[in-house]
């Protein structure tokens, strides 16, 4: 092997090894995040949760609840899109803000599919021992329901997807809709990209 070839190999080898991007931490949902044209990304869920919360806080619906902080029961939020993700990614972001800021409490020991069956059973036992027929402290003021849908279109190689996040609060005492909000997230492109 000639000297020149050896030198070339030594110079080129590290550059070949360095090809591709090494793993790194980025801000979750930040501007370095991957943008997927046909999937729901973490930043989409953050934007949706943010839009929902801002609307809910601005309207002051929770302040009208008989209980303060308002007692909230999270019902079904249906993911009717082809993108596989847990709807808890949306609702937990909202819960965190509402519960930690003292604007609402989420009843986790209420209903047929209580999040915490153990706590529900314990409350039932307590109520029974005290001669009560119901766990009257767990009366929700509002039920939260929702749906996430998608609308896909394409023109040539360009794909476009609109994800629509809908949430509704139903007043538990009147059965009427107390608040509703729609947040649209539309993405367009020919392929996924890093950063936006």
């Amino acid at each position, binding site marked *: 092997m000639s000297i020149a070839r050896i030198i070339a190999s030594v110079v080129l080898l590290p550059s070949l090894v360095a090809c591709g991007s090494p793993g790194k931490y980025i*801000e979750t*949902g*930040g*501007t370095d995040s991957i943008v997927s044209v046909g999937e729901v990304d973490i*930043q989409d869920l*953050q*934007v949706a*949760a*943010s*839009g*929902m*919360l*801002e*609307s809910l*806080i*601005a*309207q*002051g619906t929770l*302040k009208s609840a008989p209980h303060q902080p308002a007692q909230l029961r999270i019902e079904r939020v249906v993911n009717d899109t082809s993108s596989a993700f847990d709807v808890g990614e949306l609702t937990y972001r*909202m819960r965190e*803000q509402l519960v930690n*800021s003292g*604007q609402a409490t989420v009843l986790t020991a209420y209903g047929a599919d209580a999040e915490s069956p153990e706590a529900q059973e314990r409350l039932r036992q307590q109520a029974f021992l005290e001669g009560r027929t119901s766990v009257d402290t767990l009366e929700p003021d509002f039920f939260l329901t929702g749906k996430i849908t998608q609308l896909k279109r394409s023109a040539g190689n360009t794909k476009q997807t609109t994800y629509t996040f809908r949430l509704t609060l139903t007043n538990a005492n009147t059965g009427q809709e107390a608040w509703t909000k729609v947040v649209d997230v539309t993405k367009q492109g020919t392929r996924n990209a890093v*950063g*936006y």
Partner: protein
Amino acid sequence: MNPTRLVSMVCLAAVLAAAGCGTVNTTSTRTEPATDSIATRTQINDLFNQIFLHVRDVRMFPAKSGVLQAQIDVANDGFQTRGFSYLVTWLDASGNTLPGPSSTWKTSRVAAGGSITITSVAPGPEATDFSIQVRRAS
């Protein structure tokens, strides 16, 4: 008119016509500044961004629930539609950052010659001020 001058004028007309494509003309019935407009201070790190894409007006007023709501007009004085990302951070009276739903990067686009209004709601009654970071889309 000599040929060189004619060609120059045709080229100039073509450039101006191209620049005008998709540019927004705005007509407004309000000629006075909004009563809720507030003074702002901008730290400029991206001069190019500031020339074409800039915050034109900021208004702050109580929402229906009593918490503050901000409306920020971002104007595009350039010749093409521009995308941008923004992050709104709310502060309490002491200047401390408040965690809230707005603390996430969002994106928007504004047509050439037009403006768009970004809205943000304070996370709670303790919020008194806010800051907004605007950056060009990559």
